[in-house]
């Protein structure tokens, strides 16, 4: 069972997306923003884990600003 978040962790409002097979940043941006060309927003928010917007891995957790 997942441990319930407490204190300020419980207020964490970061939105996450777990990459599935066949997904691209463009496709993820379409899902959340309706416009694939806004994929750069996701890329910029994940620069700590992404070095190339064309290289995302299945199972990777990405922040969705």
């Amino acid at each position: 069972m997942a441990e319930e978040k407490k204190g300020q962790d419980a207020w964490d409002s970061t939105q996450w997306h777990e990459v599935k097979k066949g997904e691209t940043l463009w496709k993820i941006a379409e899902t959340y923003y309706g416009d694939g060309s806004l994929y750069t927003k996701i890329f910029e928010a994940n620069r700590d884990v992404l070095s190339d917007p064309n290289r995302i891995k299945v199972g990777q957790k990405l922040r969705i600003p």
Partner: protein
Amino acid sequence: MKKYLKLSAILVIVLFVAACASDKKPAEEAIKAAEAAVNSAKGEAMKYVPDQVKGLEDGLKSAKDAFAKKDYKAALAAVKDIPAKAKDLAAAAAAKKGELTKTWEDMSGGLPKMVEAIKSRVDILSKSKKLPAGMDQAKFDGAKSGLTEITQMWDDAQKAFQGGNLADAVSKANTVKDKAAQIMDTLGMKAPAAAAPAKKG
């Protein structure tokens, strides 16, 4: 015999008056002490447990009424528990203040995170050529005006806190929390655990 009866009646009256007068001073002092206790607890209590203040004031009033009617025994009886109750009232107010302070500290750290996340999403969606599936322009406009509303209300909550009105600040912050959770839902975002609606059952 007649003289004896007359003397007896006078004696009874004198004793009665003396007995009543002997209760006057203690009743007067007890009322003063109770009033002081109520006044000292009242300031904070009115802010945090106003409903409990009335009961105490009613007790004090009935003691004063009895005193005015020279019923010193009744006045003493009405006032005797008030100092202890005033102490309980002060303790209840302090407990409520502590609870509200903790809630405020928690929310004042967390709510700006929600508001910031909503603002970020609204900014991005404002640049989108097309809205995501499940969202239409009316819903998005509603979310945008909701964001303006909660930003203003959060300002108001902080002002209430700075002005020492903790209960009002927490009430406003709760409204911000609920409204922010609704907006996040509209925008297809997940509300943080602290703002998620309570589970039923």
